[in-house]
C-alpha cells in the first residue's frame, strides 16, 4: 500500500450514477408492464486507493450492474463516474485501452469466463497481446501471474484446455488473467459463488493475499455477508439499485442500522447448531425491480415503515462513521 503518495487519495468516484435498462417487448408493453428496470438508480460513493469495498445485496439489486459501470462495460444512463480523475464517459479509443489495463474484472463463473477452445496459455496471452507486450516476454509473465495466484507448477497448465482444470484452478487462472497487466483496480463479482465450499476458502485467501501484496483497490461483489466480512473492511449495502447503508464491515455486522441491513445480518446462517431462531425483522415478499415502491424502495418490506417513507426518498445521511439512507435516522 501507499506506493505512490503524490496521487490523489480517491481512485474511483461515483456520483448519482444510474443505469436503466429497457426491457420487455411489445407484448409486455401491451399489458401495461413498465419497460424500464432501474438496475442502478442514483448511487454515490468514493473509493480510496488501496481500499477494499464489499458490494452487498440481494439478487437483482444491481451489484453486477454497478460493477459493470465501474469498468465501463456499460455506459451510465445518468450521473458520472470518475476513475483517477477522468470521467469514464470520455474515455475512448487508445485511452480506453489504457483504462482496460488499469481496471480489471474477476468473473463469477470460471467455467464461463475462459473460452473453452483456448488453452490457458492463449487465454493469458490475450491481454498481453492487446497491451503490446512482445511475444518473448509473454511466457515469462504468464508463468509469473500463475505463480502469483498460487497455481503450483504453472507450466503444466499452459497447454491445457479449461475443461481439464478444476473449478478452483480455473478461478485462479481467471484471477491471473485479471492481474497479468498489473491493474490498480479490480472488481470481483462473486468470484467464489460457483465453487464448491471446500475450495472457496483457497480462492478467497489468494484474493486477499494478492490484493495486499499489490496494493490493489478492489470491489468485492457478493450477497453473502460472511464472505464480504472475510475480504473487505468497508461494505456498501444495496437494495433495488440504491445504497441503503455504507460503512465499515465490522460495524455493519456488529450493529446494523438500516432495517434492511438488520434483516440481512440476522438472516445469515452460521455453521453452529446453537444459533438463534428468532423471526426475521422483515416482511415477506421479494423486491420487484420493474415496479419498485414509491419513496423508499424498501418500505413495502420494512417493519418500521411510516407515512413519510411512501412519499419521500431517503437520502444517505451520515450516522457516526456510516452513511444510512433511512428516515429513521
Amino acid at each position, binding site marked *: 500500500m501507499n506506493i505512490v503518495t503524490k496521487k490523489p487519495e480517491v481512485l474511483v468516484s461515483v456520483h448519482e450514477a444510474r443505469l436503466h435498462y429497457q426491457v420487455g417487448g411489445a407484448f409486455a408493453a401491451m399489458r401495461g408492464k413498465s419497460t424500464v428496470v432501474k438496475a442502478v438508480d442514483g448511487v454515490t460513493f468514493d473509493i480510496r486507493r488501496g481500499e477494499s469495498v464489499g458490494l452487498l445485496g440481494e439478487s437483482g439489486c444491481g451489484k453486477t450492474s454497478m460493477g459493470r459501470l465501474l469498468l465501463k462495460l456499460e455506459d451510465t444512463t445518468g450521473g458520472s463516474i470518475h476513475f483517477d480523475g477522468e470521467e469514464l464517459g470520455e474515455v475512448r479509443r487508445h485511452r480506453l485501452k489504457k483504462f482496460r489495463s488499469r481496471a480489471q474484472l474477476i468473473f463469477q463463473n470460471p467455467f464461463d*469466463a*475462459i473460452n473453452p477452445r483456448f488453452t490457458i496459455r492463449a487465454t493469458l496471452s490475450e491481454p498481453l497481446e492487446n497491451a503490446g507486450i512482445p511475444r518473448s516476454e509473454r511466457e515469462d509473465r504468464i508463468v509469473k501471474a500463475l505463480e502469483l495466484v498460487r497455481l503450483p507448477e504453472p507450466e503444466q497448465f499452459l*497447454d491445457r484446455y479449461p475443461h481439464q482444470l478444476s473449478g478452483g484452478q480455473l478461478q485462479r487462472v481467471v484471477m491471473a488473467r485479471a492481474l497479468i497487466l498489473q491493474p490498480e483496480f479490480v472488481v470481483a463479482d462473486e468470484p467464489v459463488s460457483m465453487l464448491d465450499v471446500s475450495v472457496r476458502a483457497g480462492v478467497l485467501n489468494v484474493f486477499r493475499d494478492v490484493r495486499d501484496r499489490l496494493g490493489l483497490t478492489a470491489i468485492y461483489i457478493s450477497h453473502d455477508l460472511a464472505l464480504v466480512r472475510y475480504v473487505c473492511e468497508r461494505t456498501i449495502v444495496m437494495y433495488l439499485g440504491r445504497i441503503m447503508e455504507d460503512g465499515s464491515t465490522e460495524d455493519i455486522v456488529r450493529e446494523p442500522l438500516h432495517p434492511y441491513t438488520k434483516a440481512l445480518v440476522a438472516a445469515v446462517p452460521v455453521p453452529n447448531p446453537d444459533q438463534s431462531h428468532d423471526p426475521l425483522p422483515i416482511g415477506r415478499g421479494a423486491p420487484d425491480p420493474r415496479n419498485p415502491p414509491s419513496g423508499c424502495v424498501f418500505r413495502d418490506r420494512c417493519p418500521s415503515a411510516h407515512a413519510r417513507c411512501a412519499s419521500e426518498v431517503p437520502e444517505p445521511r451520515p450516522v457516526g462513521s456510516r452513511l444510512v439512507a433511512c428516515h429513521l435516522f
Partner: protein
Amino acid sequence: MPEIAAPAIIKPRRPNILARMFRALRLPVNDPFAVAGLVIYFVFIVTAVFADQIATHDPTEILYTPSYDLAADLRPGQDGFLMGTTSLGRDIFSQLVYGSRSALLIGVTAAFMVALIGSIIGLIAGYFGRWVDAVLMRLADIAFGIPFLPFVIVLAAFLQPSIWNVVIAMALVLWRDTARVIRSQVLTLRTRGYVEAARVAGSSDFKIILRHIAPNILPLSFLYGSIAIGWAILTEASISFLGFGDPDSISWGYMLQDAFASQALAKQAYYWFVPPGICIILVVSAGFFVTRGYENILFPKLNR
C-alpha cells in the same frame, strides 16, 4: 552464476490447418445417417467433378441411331444408351451425370452465399446491437415478408432464365433465417463470460468477433449452409418445372420438366422421370441427414 535449468516447457502442438478446419467444422461422423449423407455427398461430388469422363455423350447433343434415325425415346440399353434417351434424342444417363454438376454448383454456391451473408449479417447485428441491429433486423423482417418461391419466379422472369437465379434469389432472401439464428446465438455468446473477459482484456471488437465468436458460430453457419443446399436444389427443380428454368444447362429439375413436357408419364418412361427424382431426393435428404447429425452435435441436450 550457476545455470539453472529452465523448467521444460511443453510447446503447444499446432495441428495443421486442414485438421483444424475439420475440427472446427465438427463433421458428424458418429451418426450413421449423417455418415450415409456424407457418403452420398461424396459420390455426387465425384460424379460432378468427373462428369466429362463419366458421361457417355454430350447431354445436349441430339443423337442419331446407327441407321441415322433420331435416337428418340429409346429404352434403357437400347443401342447402347445406358438409361435410354429423351424424346429429343438425348442421352438420359449423361444428362443425369451432368445434372449432378448443376445440382452441386447451385447447391454449394447457394449454401455458401446464404451461410456467408447470413452469418456476417447475424454477426454484425448481434454483436454491435443498437441501431445496426435494428436496421439489419428490419431488413430481415422485410426478407421474411417476401414469399420465396414467387420471388424466384419473378426474378427468373426478370433476369435471363439461368440456374443462377435460384442462387441469387436465395442470397437475396434466405439469408434471413441464418442471420436471425446466428444473431440470437451471437447475443448469447456476447454475454458469455469469456467474450466479456476479452473486452476487459482490451481486445478490439474485430478481434473478439474473429477469435471468440466466429469459431462458435461456424458449425451453425455450416448447418444452415447444408440446409440451403437442399433448398436450392428443390427450388431449382420447382422453377424448372414451372418453365422458368435455364434451358441451356442440364439439371435434374430440367430433366423432370423435360420428361413431363414430353409426357414421360403417359409413355411409362420410368427410366426417364424416376432417376432425376431419386437423385434429387438422395442429395437433398443427404443434406438433411448431415444437418441432423450436426444438430445432434450442436445441441446435444436435445438428443434428437
